[in-house]
């Protein structure tokens, strides 16, 4: 073009870190039992660190076997009164918690990002608003349980133990606590070892909401704490979200007992792009499907299935788009990809990526500046992947997408279902009839059409096959917390 350039102004975004000045974290947090924070029986505290800097944030109590016994006792004592409250009164507490989450949303978002490494953009726009929305949603169900289940009479189960993962700490706590409490149960929540802080702030919120002591107990610790909770004989139900391996252990530990169980486990979800898809939006959906929360998402679209006729176009556009992802300080409002949650998880990602290279898949990783401290993994794309490769079969739980191709609709369905898992799937097509046909044939608990990783408290979420059983969200999410009397 002949129009001369008169100005050459370089334009890059300046650093835009969210301030953490308003955060008042305590130096140490005890166990939240009987409505107050108390020291663990053996006095053990462990630090929780910021995975983006490896700096400690606070010390958190390590719940041992005696603490589990005390927690269960407190919960047992609290249950009859809570269950006997008029449903509308229970709902009021849930509404109050929801509003307090909204009021403290900025603080919760910052702490979620500091403790877990996820970009502030996500904790601010997704995690915290959705957590509040879950409490609002289930507050509304509290006095309508019969209509949500279709039964004439329902009863709460009693004391439920809930073990949540580190990828969406507050949101998963909300998914678990809100329906349990709405149904008249009392809950003992075990947050993940690496991300306990927002659950502890939620404990403060329970105090502020004047929730009766013992209705919510927060028991921090590691896998042993969770195991002790599972093996406690006085618990009526365990709800677990996490890896399939741990889910298996829990299920075998509970075999032959009358403790109820729901599991929400891993996935290797298929994201299927048909040749008639809106390509640019599909690419956006692929990015959102696998790089959202650094791929630490159980329903991540980690198996990308592209119709052969558009394979090159989609991969080229995806690669271009990946190049624009901004990796770095999770506290920066313009960061798209934050830190990997822990050293352990980083190692697991690196091992599987190395296996992918060894097995002959072609690896492409975007070039970007990696901060010196903390745990990081740059967004990675694997092509020339065979369905038998480990990276096409095993859950990586990181920002790594494996591309497979298909020729026909039937082959797409066959390949998508050819997995031990069945948590979620995505379908990209502009043709409505095809979308419905394929969705009906997929063995996955959630199927998204022309979008991915969208969550809503009204929609049921849960798995097929080794992705678990039981549903969370919507009226279906009431069922696992109720006994149907008649």
């Amino acid at each position, binding site marked *: *073009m002949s129009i001369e350039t008169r100005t050459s102004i370089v*334009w890059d975004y300046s650093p835009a870190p969210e301030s953490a000045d308003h955060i008042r974290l305590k130096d140490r947090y005890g166990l939240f039992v009987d409505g107050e924070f108390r020291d663990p029986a053996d006095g053990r505290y462990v630090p929780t660190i910021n995975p983006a800097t490896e700096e400690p944030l606070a010390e958190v109590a390590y719940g041992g076997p005696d603490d589990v016994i005390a927690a269960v006792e407190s919960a047992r004592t609290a249950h009859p009164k809570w269950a006997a409250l008029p449903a509308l009164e229970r709902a009021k507490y849930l509404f109050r918690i929801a509003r307090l989450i909204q009021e403290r949303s900025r603080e919760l978002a910052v702490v979620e990002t500091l403790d877990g490494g996820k970009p502030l953009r996500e904790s601010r726009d997704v995690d915290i608003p959705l957590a509040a929305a879950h409490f609002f949603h289930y507050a509304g169900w509290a006095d309508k349980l019969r209509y949500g289940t279709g039964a004439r009479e329902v009863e709460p189960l009693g004391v439920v133990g809930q073990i949540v993962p580190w990828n969406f700490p507050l949101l998963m706590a909300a998914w678990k606590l809100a329906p349990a409490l709405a149904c008249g149960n009392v809950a003992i929540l075990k947050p993940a070892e690496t991300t306990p802080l927002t659950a502890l702030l939620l404990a403060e919120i329970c105090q502020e909401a004047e929730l009766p002591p013992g209705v919510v107990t927060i028991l921090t610790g590691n896998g042993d704490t969770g195991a002790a909770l599972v093996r406690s004989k006085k618990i009526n139900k365990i709800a677990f979200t996490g890896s399939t391996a741990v889910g298996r252990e829990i299920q075998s530990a509970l075999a032959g007992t009358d403790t109820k169980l729901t599991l929400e486990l891993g996935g290797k979800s298929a994201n299927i792009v048909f040749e008639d*898809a809106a390509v640019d939006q599909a690419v956006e959906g692929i990015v959102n499907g696998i790089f959202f929360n650094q791929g630490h998402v159980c329903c991540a679209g980690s198996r990308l299935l592209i119709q052969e006729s558009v394979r090159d176009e989609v991969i080229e556009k995806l690669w271009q788009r990946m190049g624009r992802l901004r990796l770095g300080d999770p506290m920066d*409002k313009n960061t798209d990809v934050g830190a990997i949650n822990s050293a352990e998880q980083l190692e697991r990602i690196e091992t599987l990526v190395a296996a992918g290279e060894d097995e002959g898949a072609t690896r492409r990783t975007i070039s970007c500046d990696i901060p010196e401290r903390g745990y990081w993994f740059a967004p990675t794309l694997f092509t020339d992947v065979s369905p038998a490769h480990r990276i096409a079969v095993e859950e990586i739980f990181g920002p790594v997408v494996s591309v497979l191709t298909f020729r026909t609709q039937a082959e797409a369905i066959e390949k998508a279902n050819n997995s031990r898992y069945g948590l979620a799937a995505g379908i990209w097509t502009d043709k409505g009839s095809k979308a419905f046909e394929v969705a009906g044939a997929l063995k996955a608990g959630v199927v998204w059409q022309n979008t991915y990783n969208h969550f809503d408290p009204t929609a049921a979420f849960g798995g097929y096959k080794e992705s678990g059983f039981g549903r969370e969200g919507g009226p279906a999410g009431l069922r696992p917390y109720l006994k149907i009397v008649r």
Partner: protein
Amino acid sequence: MIRRLPHVDRVGIEERATQLGKRSIKTTAKQQGIRLAVSMVDLTTLEGADTPGKVRHLCAKGVCPAPTMPEIPSVAAICVYPSLVATAKEALNGTGVKTASVATGFPAGQVSLEAKLRDTEDAVAAGADEIDMVISREAFLAGDDARVQQEIVAVKEHCGDAHLKVILETAELGSYDHVRHASMLAMEAGADFIKTSTGKASAGATPGVCLVMLEAIRDYADRTGRIVGFKAAGGVSTSKAALHRLVLVKETLGDEWLTADRIRIGASSVLNDLLMQYAKTQNGRYGRSEDFSKE
């Protein structure tokens, strides 16, 4: 010619465009972004009441938008009706600011091709460096893609050395699929720029429309190697909106596209908001509208 419409998902495109509106542009980035935006403005007056006097005032404003802040560059062009091109050309002589003219029966384009070409010839003869034409929405909506393209080709021939910006008037096209298709038609027919709107329709350069057109430009450049510019016009009246459009460009086409010879913002009122926001980055307060002359 068989029309095959591309697929653009409305929900997806709007979500992405909205998400990019949340980029945090502060401190130096804000100052540089505002300067960049000013340098891309096509400062426009398109009213029946325009006179040579008004156009001369506007030209002076465009050449030196804020005498108190010398680091603010001139705008890219002054955009007027064909009858005022000579006045603008004279006022802008030697300043580097271009003279742009709307033509082809702007804004409706409901005149004969002969009249459109004559309109173009007049503007070029009077010294216009850039011609902003409208596509025939009448032909496009009736499915006559060939006529839409033939008209663009004919106008382009009559432009001579002048650059041709093709206005799609996206608010009248009815869908993102149509916006994308019309973008491709215009680029294939030889447009130097594609432009969203006349500023006279119900909506203008919405984030979604801008993103669809920028993606079309990117795909066309990838396929053919030819670079086509983009002009957002209509509804971009605040600094925040202008910077949002620049974010869309940066994250769709890349940094090398952030220059006035590839990107323009057609507007009248946005310039002073850019100046006021720039002043705010320096003295910390958002001033009064009287701080800067209207024209």
